[in-house]
């Protein structure tokens, strides 16, 4: 047998080891697999060198269209990533470690996750955070399940302005629980408050809202928590963490649980993953939180240290009675989130949010000047907003794609009667020149 990638034994060593093991051949070690069950077919191609492999990947990657100008968001945002984020998260001591089950030799990961939890608490204005979940959509679904457990009620009311993709995941997660999912159809891009009064009864476990919402609108949720709490339900807010640089925090709004997707915090778009989901809550809910939590403690000498804590909530102890089935989370992505937030810093995040807002406002007013384009004006927006086009948005987007511009996310497939609506996203990475190109190309496409 020739030695291939990463199997270091020489033929002599293999013979020595077989002799020590008391078998004549490697094949003998597989004797417990009955002959009739053995693999008859295994068609993978032969392996190759690292150099050839990497070239194959480069070739594959070149089949993607490069250099698109991105004005699309929809929960995934093209933000700057400081170089330190890559370099530090690529420290092998972080990325080739496992879950910190042995705390003494994992203090690096554990302290970083404690600092991450602290950052999430401070950003959301809530008391406790877990050490990450898979993504924003599954975090929303876990929050709904958490509300069901906490309130012992089965009805989840969700604002139809919450990301349609997240609502699809929510529906999947709730499909096999004794839960009723009620969606409130949006009213002019905002929460339908009249309908909410009907649906928010004393069987409701939670109201799920999002800000900014899928239309880009920053719905004013002042007073909403009181209304929800008066019915004995929980308020769950899905948030865009970069926007929290300036927007009122879930804690200030009186929310019980906040969730979101951490991609925008130092994680590349990477065709949709990996990113991380975050979850923060009021302290009274801590025993109902899903996933790992890092806690502070001391060692035998009274020295501060960190451990995984409250593990009695989790599947490896509670099995089918656990708060969730989650085991692996998105730890390294959460670490990237922490490094991003630390690199940008306290004032930096506020400035970054403001920069996004300014760029989007500039784009909004430029697009509004194009004949036939109107801007949805029902609420202020952050870095994305909805425009109405004189023809179906998918046609316009397709035409602009051919010109290298990803103009936004058409809403037609998500909402009836929204065929002409397009959500346009502008992050700090889009220059004035990019914006002017979008405006110019859109004008051309609309004239044709």
């Amino acid at each position: 047998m020739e030695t291939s990638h990463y199997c270091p034994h020489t033929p002599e060593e293999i013979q020595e080891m077989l002799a020590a093991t008391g078998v004549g051949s490697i094949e003998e070690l597989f004797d417990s697999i009955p002959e009739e069950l053995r693999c008859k077919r295994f068609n993978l191609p032969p392996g190759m060198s690292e150099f050839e492999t990497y070239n194959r990947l480069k070739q594959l990657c070149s089949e993607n269209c490069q250099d698109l100008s991105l004005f699309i968001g929809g929960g995934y945002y093209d933000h700057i990533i400081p170089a330190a984020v890559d370099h530090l998260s690529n420290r092998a001591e972080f990325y080739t470690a496992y879950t910190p089950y042995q705390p003494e030799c994992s203090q690096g990961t554990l302290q970083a996750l404690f600092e991450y939890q602290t950052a999430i608490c401070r950003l959301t204005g809530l008391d406790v955070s877990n050490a990450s979940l898979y993504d924003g959509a599954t975090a929303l679904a876990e929050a709904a399940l958490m509300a069901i457990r906490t309130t012992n009620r089965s009805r989840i009311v969700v604002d139809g302005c919450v990301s349609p993709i997240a609502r699809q995941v929510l529906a999947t997660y709730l499909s096999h629980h004794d839960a009723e999912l009620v969606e409130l159809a949006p009213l002019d891009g905002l929460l339908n408050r009249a309908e909410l009064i009907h649906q928010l009864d004393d069987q409701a476990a939670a109201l799920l809202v999002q800000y900014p919402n899928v239309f880009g609108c920053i719905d004013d949720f002042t007073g909403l928590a009181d209304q929800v709490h008066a019915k004995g339900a929980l308020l769950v807010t899905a948030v865009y963490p970069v926007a929290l640089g300036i927007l009122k925090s879930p804690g200030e709004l009186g929310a019980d649980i906040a969730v979101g997707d951490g991609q925008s915090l130092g994680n590349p778009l990477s065709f949709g993953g990996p990113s991380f989901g975050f979850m923060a809550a009021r302290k009274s809910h801590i025993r109902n939180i899903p996933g790992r939590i890092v806690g502070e403690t001391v060692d035998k000498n009274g020295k501060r240290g960190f451990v995984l804590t409250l593990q009695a909530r989790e599947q490896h102890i509670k099995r089918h009675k656990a708060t969730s089935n989650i085991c692996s989370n998105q730890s390294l992505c959460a670490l990237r989130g922490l490094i991003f937030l630390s690199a940008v810093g306290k004032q930096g995040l506020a400035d970054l949010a403001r920069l996004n807002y300014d760029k989007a406002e500039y784009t909004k007013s430029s697009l509004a000047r194009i004949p036939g384009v109107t801007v949805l004006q029902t609420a202020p927006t952050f870095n994305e907003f909805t425009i109405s086009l004189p023809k179906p948005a998918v046609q316009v987007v397709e035409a602009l794609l051919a010109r290298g511009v990803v103009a936004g996310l058409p809403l037609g497939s998500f909402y009836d009667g929204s065929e002409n609506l397009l959500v346009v996203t502008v992050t700090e990475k889009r220059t004035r020149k990019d914006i002017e190109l979008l405006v110019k190309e859109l004008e051309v496409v609309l004239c044709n």
Partner: protein
Amino acid sequence: MQLIYEKSVSGRRGVMLPASDVPSAASLPQNLLRADTANLPEISELDLVRHFTNLSRRNFSVDTNFYPLGSCTMKYNAKVLENAAALFAPFHPLTALLPGGDSLCQGSLGMLYDLGQMLADITGMDEVTTQPLAGAHGEMTGMLLVAAYHKAKGNRKKYVVVPDSSHGTNPASAAMAGYEIITIPTAPYGDMDLELFRQAMNGEVAAVMMTCPNTLGLFNPYIKDIADIAHSHDALMYYDGANLNAIMGKVRPGDVGFDVVHLNLHKTFGTPHGGGGPGSGPVGVKKSLIPFLPMPRIIHDEVDGKLKLQTDNEQSIGRTANFFGNFGVMVKAYTYMIMLGREGLIQASEQAVLNANYIKEKLKAYYDLPYDKTCMHEVVFSASNQLAKGVHAIDIAKFLIDKGYHPPTVYFPLIVKEAIMIEPTETESKQTMDAFIEVMIEAARLAENSPDSFAAMPVTMPVTRLDETRAARSQTVCYLG
């Protein structure tokens, strides 16, 4: 070591942001704005770099230490995988869902499609969805597929059967799909008790979840019989792929009767564990379950040879995550697979099994081996001999830390008292294992001669043993300073 918040200096700035090239807009209404800026760190870039570099040095990792953590497959994570994933960093997932967008990301879709085909080939399945984000997420997806299958057939099913040696995620995932759990004990020969299993099976069982080889590192020779019994009750067979590293090219779950499998790309296919994630948990299914797969699904269009996305399907279980799964992790697994190729993967399994058996034979004179037979990729000892002297598995773990080894998994599987579960993987050299074996023998001798000396260990780490009860009581999970 100080927290990054304790190093913050009010007013200090970190990374510079791009300058604005647009006019400043009128401010948002005050009622939408937060009262105070979130109190994030205020630190220079150099101090930031030192902080995280020094934190990283407080970790054991595969790149610094032998890490034989059973059930976790801590093999070497090839460096080229990181380079490959970085190539695909700039692509927005929603581009693919725009009209004409699929033609702009044929490279990304092609990678996903090819990976799915290769995983189907390795597992003997007919189609693979890459959407699940980790092993447990794959299990949940798999159980939702099981539920959808039974619903479509009008079957009334209530239970999922698991052996008592199963991972905790198995019953927890089955519960996420609304099932109740029946647990079958392990027989003295180390596999699920076949007779008790036969008795427990009935028409209300939806699925049987098995890890094969199981968490004792043993391949169940009766697996086909178990599958036949399950199928006779129209129950589906679920394969937990945590231990696939033992059997690549030797046996395929699909050939022995499994209907659904999940894989842990972060175990078998060499992608790094990241200190707890991200993983990736693709799910493979037999033909009968394809109609229920999550959306979007990648379809190969025979007419123009292009890959397209199917987004609508009435019977689908729906969407289980944001987009296409942990794409970056999958690029790494794909790179690993095409680089090793058919022979390389077979060799990986063979040497993983050889290494585990080598360690087993070398240590069984010193540690109790409750199931003394040829193991697959991992071996489970018990510290019961040492316990007689008052030394627990956790004490041996702490001794190993002081010797520079990440401990094996301890206290799992739950059915072995004082379990020590060792999985060396194929990427470790004989010299590394020999040194580890010596240290394990030293631990056994120390337990015999000086059992009290373990209590103080570890002494070489930044902290000694930590007070977990205090952590649970104080619930300090956020820095309040």
